């Protein structure tokens, strides 16, 4: 490592999604000289193609405190990200779904989310577009959504204002870890930095592999669809007891339909494909929940990659075995939680005590290398 301190960054972040960008911002505020490299453009991965749902009802109990704080970031960003606080209903159509709904929502309410159980009659009185087959429902007044396509431009503006260097269309081809820092090879030449944060979403495992670290990350290929604009029929964001539906009618009148139905593809090729059969099931579930969808036209379906590890808790902390390297990925509900947990990891990098505990990535290595035994320091809040 021959770079002089003059052109070396204090922190290089790989990935300009919500995680990487908000971590970079906090690090810059903390006095670091920060650069973010992005293989595509800011917010072009999961941050920009997800359904934009900001629902506390679909957050995990163990992540609720993080979700409540992340939600505040979106609320404050407001119109610039298309934030809408619409309230949200989660619906059950069978007795077993109702039991699932009541169990889950009670726990989430106890974890701090302002969720109430409502009767089907009440739900339909307030939201007449809902199916008359609803047997149980919960409501969260805070729920809503943002326009995920605006995430990237918004983050880009924040990074510029904070004087964080953002190199888009810049693929990290290889990483040399030597001496007291890192040299990342990019098409525009090498970049040197004292510290490294991998916040590369679905590509996190392949970036970590450049440093010889094998992260057991699974990638899901989530499907989202949008319809043509239609007259205003639906006000609240709609979910399903199983978490397999997100549905809202956006400000322009189009319906956005998601819920994590699986397509095909892999981050290696960068190509995700819509599976015609699962798309139909997703549309059917949406149509069943909100019959007002009848005879709207589906304009477009697409997929986004979502990374996760076996326990579905985040990787947020030191990259095991590589001094001065950090990782932030696999955050379930990462769209909502990202802008809170990103800065938390930056606090760790800045040598500050994070406000809430992080999620030591060592635990996932321990699981794979020690025949299932959990590392002593693997902490999982809420369990």
């Amino acid at each position, binding site marked *: 490592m021959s770079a002089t301190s003059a052109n070396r960054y204090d922190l290089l972040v790989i990935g300009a999604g919500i995680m990487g960008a908000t971590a970079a911002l906090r690090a810059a505020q903390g006095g670091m000289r920060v650069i973010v490299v992005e293989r595509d*453009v800011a917010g*072009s991965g999961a941050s*920009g193609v997800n359904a934009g749902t900001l629902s506390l009802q*679909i957050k*995990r*109990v163990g992540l609720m405190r993080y979700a409540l704080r992340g939600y505040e970031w979106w609320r404050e960003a407001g119109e610039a990200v298309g934030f809408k606080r619409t309230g949200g209903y989660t619906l059950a*159509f*069978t007795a077993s779904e109702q039991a*699932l709904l009541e169990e*889950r929502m009670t*726990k989430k309410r106890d974890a701090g989310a302002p969720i109430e159980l409502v009767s089907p009659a009440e739900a339909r009185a307030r939201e007449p577009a809902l199916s008359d*087959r609803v047997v149980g429902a919960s409501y969260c007044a805070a729920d809503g959504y943002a326009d995920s*396509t605006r995430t*990237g*431009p918004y983050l*880009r503006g924040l990074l510029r204002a904070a004087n964080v260097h953002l190199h*888009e*269309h810049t693929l990290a081809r290889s990483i040399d870890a030597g001496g007291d820092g890192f040299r990342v090879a990019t098409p525009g030449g090498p970049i040197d930095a004292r510290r490294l944060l991998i916040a590369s979403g679905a590509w996190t495992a392949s970036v970590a592999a450049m440093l010889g670290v094998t992260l057991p990350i699974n990638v899901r290929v989530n499907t989202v669809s949008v*319809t*043509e604009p239609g007259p205003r029929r639906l006000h609240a964001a709609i979910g399903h*007891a*199983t*978490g*397999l539906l997100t549905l809202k009618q956006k400000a322009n009148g189009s319906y956005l339909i998601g819920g*994590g*139905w*699986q397509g*095909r593809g892999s981050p290696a090729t960068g*190509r995700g*494909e*819509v*599976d*015609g*059969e699962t*798309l*139909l*099931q997703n*549309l*059917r*579930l949406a*149509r*069943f929940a909100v019959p007002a*969808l*009848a*005879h*709207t*036209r*589906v*304009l*477009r*379906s*697409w997929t986004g990659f979502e990374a996760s590890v076996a326990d*579905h808790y985040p990787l947020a902390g030191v990259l095991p075995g590589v001094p001065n390297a950090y990782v932030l990925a696999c955050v*379930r509900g990462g769209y909502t939680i990202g802008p809170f947990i990103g800065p938390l990891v930056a606090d760790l990098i800045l040598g500050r005590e994070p406000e809430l505990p992080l999620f030591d990535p060592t635990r996932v290595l321990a699981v794979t290398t020690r025949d299932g035994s959990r590392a002593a320091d693997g902490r999982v809040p809420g369990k």
Partner: protein
Amino acid sequence: MSASPHAGPAGSCDVAVLGAGPAGAAAAIEASALGLRVALLDEQPIAGGQVYRAVPGIAPVRADRDRAEGDRLRSTVADANIERHFCHRVWHVERVDDEWRVHALGPEGPRTVHAAALIVATGAQERHVPFAGWERPGVIGLAAATVLIKAQRILPGRNVVVAGVGPLLLVVAKAIIEGGGRVAAIVDANARGDWFAHARDLVSRPDLVARGIGWIRTMRSHGVPMLHGHILRTVDGDTRSLRAVAAPIGRDGHPHAEVASTELLCDAVCCGFGLMPATDVTRLAGAAHAFDPARGGWHVIVDADQRCDLPGLYAAGDGAGVTGAAAAPLQGRIAASAVARDLGRMDANARGARGKKRGSVRAARFGTAMTQLASVGDGAIASIPADVIVCQCERLSRRVLDGAIDDGCATINDLKSATRCGMGPCGGRLCEDTAARLIAIRTGRTRTDIGQATGRPPLRPVDLDALAGTFDYDALPMPVPSPL
């Protein structure tokens, strides 16, 4: 659903052909003759595509050569052993477990065709160059005008300005006159002499050249003003009385400020700027594409046997590069032969393929020359005023797109996600080419670097209820709930 394509259940076949125009119909007929089980899908009620479009049961105003050729093609398709799915809108194609799945919506609801091979013969789509007022009622494309006239027997207006570039100008003007309408003027971006630059390739089809000269005579005898080297800049007024302003342009497409514009009064404007390969299916399938202005722009890459770079995927006709209706059937037959060989159903050295290839190359020369004549210089794009709407669906002006480009949008996908350009019902068909040219003009990047928009299903907007069909809630295959 996962039956082997060779097992022979309903909905499975050796080869599915998308599009029953000249290329697709020829491919299907040839594949059937080679003993393959063929499914032919088209959105229209009968075969023929755009070139030989007709209405079943309605006689043409006057018998012409296209109608006769179209009828011949239709009767051959009808006689061949082909599983025909007309009135089917294909909304998705995907490759799963060594087969292609073609999802379509037909009169009886959704249908999925499983095929070992897929021949994409979806033809071309029209290129547009925006001008002030092009989103107004009364302004339609040349291709749309031919549909109206050929299939619906409706004139776009009584007194029509026909504008743009390329041979379709004359085709539409002649059809309007034959249908009893008046052509207020033909506004042709080409200078009068541009045709001579391609004379050598044009003489490869003297019959078609003679036909074109005949059309020009028709225009002269009806006293139709021909404004060569002009482009439409503005259309205003309402459909009872539209005012179109045509401005003179140089060879690079830039307007000549010193030469006066011409005002034309009319009740309809038909405009189009040449044809581009329809790449939506091959993009969705994930095949490799290349940008070549001589072939109409972005086209799927095929080898000499019309194979794409994905297993079991073939393309024929204008979708593989605009080469015209003469080359299309030859390419269709080449593709069908390749499918038969690749599926092990025909001797790899079978005769005939070589001759077809030579014929295809010869026929393509004429089409390629026509395609080059049907293009307009970057100046025509660079001089679009800032207030002009480029993306009609999302009502985005050039100013908005330029702002996003200056803000860092370097690819068509960047521009799409930053501004929603091309995300409306037209799926970018009207605006993507212009948007990409704006990026190229402003950044100096090549069209190859700027790329195409990622292909997404549905290929055309589809009714959600028609897709969802009737279903039982309890039968929905619900995956495991998300973790608590």
